[in-house]
């Protein structure tokens, strides 16, 4: 089991949520290889939001779902309470298509890659945490990827201020919420999911802020992989 948490060089959000800490990500951390059955597993924690991800693959696929030249990616998101509903399906579509773009699916035709995400606690930025957990789990499973991805959520407050990695309370108060997935190769937008209305300038600002924040998360991925594999003799 490898435990990595990013505490140095990252200001944790204070309990009072002062104005100046709004452009900083909450304290995040991840743990890999914690489950024995899945081929890859990870948890990703952002502040109080926590997601557990498990990856199975490449494995057998049902004949009805098989694609002749590529692997089939399936994503299941289990909410904390109740059965998965329409909201989870929409999130699954976002996670699935982002994973499909990153994975080298043509290396495993007629196989399936299944990503299962369990919501442990939701305190805002849920879709971002799901994507980050999925990426760490795919890395843990050793599936070949052309690039890594990470996700950042921005909220635009009533006064027009941009809050990064909002908590559930901040999400409820802000009229607009934007989630982006950024790729590690060219730092471009892979996935975009927004609610609420905003202007074009606000969108461009949020993308720029997300790209900057993604650099921190990619550095964290690199550090965690480095630390993990430097232990192997």
């Amino acid at each position: 089991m490898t435990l990595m948490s990013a505490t140095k060089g990252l200001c944790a959000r204070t309990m009072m949520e002062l104005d100046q800490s709004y452009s900083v990500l909450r304290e995040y951390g991840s743990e890999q290889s914690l489950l024995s059955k899945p081929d890859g597993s990870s948890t990703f924690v952002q502040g109080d939001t926590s997601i557990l991800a498990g990856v199975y693959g490449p494995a057998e696929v049902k004949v009805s779902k098989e694609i002749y030249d590529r692997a089939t990616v399936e994503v299941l998101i289990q909410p904390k309470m109740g059965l998965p509903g329409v909201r989870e399906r929409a999130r699954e579509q976002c996670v699935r298509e982002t994973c499909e773009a990153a994975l080298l699916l043509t290396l495993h035709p007629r196989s399936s890659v299944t990503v299962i995400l369990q919501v442990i606690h939701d305190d805002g930025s849920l879709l971002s945490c799901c994507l980050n957990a999925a990426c760490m789990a795919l890395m843990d499973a050793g599936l070949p990827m052309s690039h890594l991805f990470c996700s950042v959520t921005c909220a635009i407050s009533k006064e027009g201020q941009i809050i990064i990695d909002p908590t559930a309370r901040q999400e409820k108060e802000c009229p607009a919420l934007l989630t982006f997935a950024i790729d590690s190769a060219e730092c471009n937008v892979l996935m975009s999911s927004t609610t609420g209305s905003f202007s074009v300038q606000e969108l461009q600002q949020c993308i720029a802020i997300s790209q900057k924040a993604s650099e921190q998360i990619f550095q964290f991925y690199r550090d965690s992989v480095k630390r993990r594999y430097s232990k192997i003799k």
Partner: protein
Amino acid sequence: MAAGFKTAEPLEYHRSFLKENCRPDGRELGEFRPTTLNISSVSTADGSALVKIGNTTVICGIKAELTTPPSDAPNRGYIVPNVDLPPLCSSKFRPGPPGEQAQAASQFIADVIESSDLINMEELCIEKSKLCWVLYCDIMCLDYDGNLLDACIIVLLAALKNAQLPEVTINKETDLAEADIQKKQPLKINRLPVGSSFAVFDDSIIIVDPTAEEESLSTALLTVVTDEEDRLCAVHKPGGTSLSGEKLQHCINRAITRNKEISKLVNKVTESMKTAK
């Protein structure tokens, strides 16, 4: 000979057209298919509309029912959109419970209604904590040829503009609701959100209004919803290959022009309904 090439190498076939900056059906890269709109076609519904974007045909029916308001928002009503993709519209949809695409589309429409502030929910409330309207918007695709989300937004907007709700009063003595079917009021629509869908080919070429074939060959799909004040209500890109900032800006500009075209169409059809009466 072309038909054989198209079946054997569909991607190369499309690429040969894109190299010349056009598409197999003769359109430009930035051209939408002809859009036609028909309202009030379903007489049993409180409001209805049918839209055709090229071959993609989507119909929407609005049924209004009375219910108690939610306990956490006692002065608001409900709008419940549901997108149905029956096996009728395309061979890729099997009978049974709604698939992922239908559910994701339903969630997207619900988000657009909420984000664009299309209808003031407080207006759907008849009496606080006691009675409110719930509008069931059933959107059904009859012919799937790509660009489902744009068609769903247009058809929903037109159906809501067309919807007439009877006046409801609560009888003081019996405490029951009484609906006066003779007196009907249209809904007050605040905004005109219009969507524009784009497909990305080979990570570099962006085409507007993809057909079903183009969607299956594309590497990424993007839908931008704008309202009449040029504010964005949704930027929906559920994954796929990455998009740079300038290309995204180019798509947003195209979406803003499309908004004006569709607003004119919807207003023209609604006005023609009024004059016809």
